[in-house]
């Protein structure tokens, strides 16, 4: 049915937030991060397929952005620190090769 395979992500740390207190957010994106330098078992080059950009925003205000390069491991994991002063919506967005784009949101309500 679906043309594109389902993108899998893990987002941790958005539940137990406190107002104004920095807290760590940990995210993983299911992505092969093929760097275009490897060969398969038949000697063919595996085409490059990278996630190249990540952005996390709180109600449109940038938290952290990351440019990802071939030296990032497969299934890129990132952790960073968020300080939320009130309830809002966190957005997580990835961009990559071959038009890859994925967006997730989490509503947060810091205590």
């Amino acid at each position, binding site marked *: 049915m679906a043309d594109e395979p389902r993108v899998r992500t893990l987002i941790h740390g958005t539940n137990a937030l406190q107002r104004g*207190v*920095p*807290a760590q957010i*940990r995210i993983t994106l299911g992505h092969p991060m093929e*760097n275009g*330098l*490897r*060969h398969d078992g038949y000697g063919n080059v595996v085409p490059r397929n990278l996630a190249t950009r990540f952005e996390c*925003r*709180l109600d449109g*205000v*940038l*938290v*952290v*952005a*990351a*440019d*990802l*390069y*071939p*030296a*990032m*491991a*497969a299934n*890129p*994991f*990132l*952790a*960073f*620190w*968020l*300080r*939320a002063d009130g309830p809002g919506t966190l957005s997580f967005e990835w961009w990559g090769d071959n038009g890859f784009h994925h967006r997730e949101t989490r509503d947060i309500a810091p205590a």
Partner: protein
Amino acid sequence: MTRTVLPGRRQLLGAAGGLVLGLQLRTARAVSATATLAEVERQWAGGQPVREGRVQLEVAPLVENGNAVPIRVRLDSPMTADDRVQEIVVFNERNPQRDVVRFSFGPACGRAQADARIRLATSQQLVALARLADGSLWSHHVDVIVTLAACVES
């Protein structure tokens, strides 16, 4: 009447302790940049001076699996509007490409710290470079030994 002064037991023990301490300090101390990294840093800095210090790159000195190496970059900063870290970038010395990751920290960021998992093709030097809002640039060089390299299957 000659009397040779032999070092006492306490002095010997003290010297031995100092030697051990010195060795430990050497592994923890920042190393100087290799020529490859120095060139990359010059381009990144755009002619501004880069000082060693403040920013920290945490990575295990002995890496068993180069396919996923945990790293952490951090810099103690209040992260206020005036005194904040704008970006921290990581470069490598001997992967096929020098870039590893670039973090930009926005207004909703609570702490200038970020973790990632990276690939390392071989034993080499890594550097974290930080750009602060006041325009100052900071670096931290780390040598890592990789026992199982990434990209060995090609």
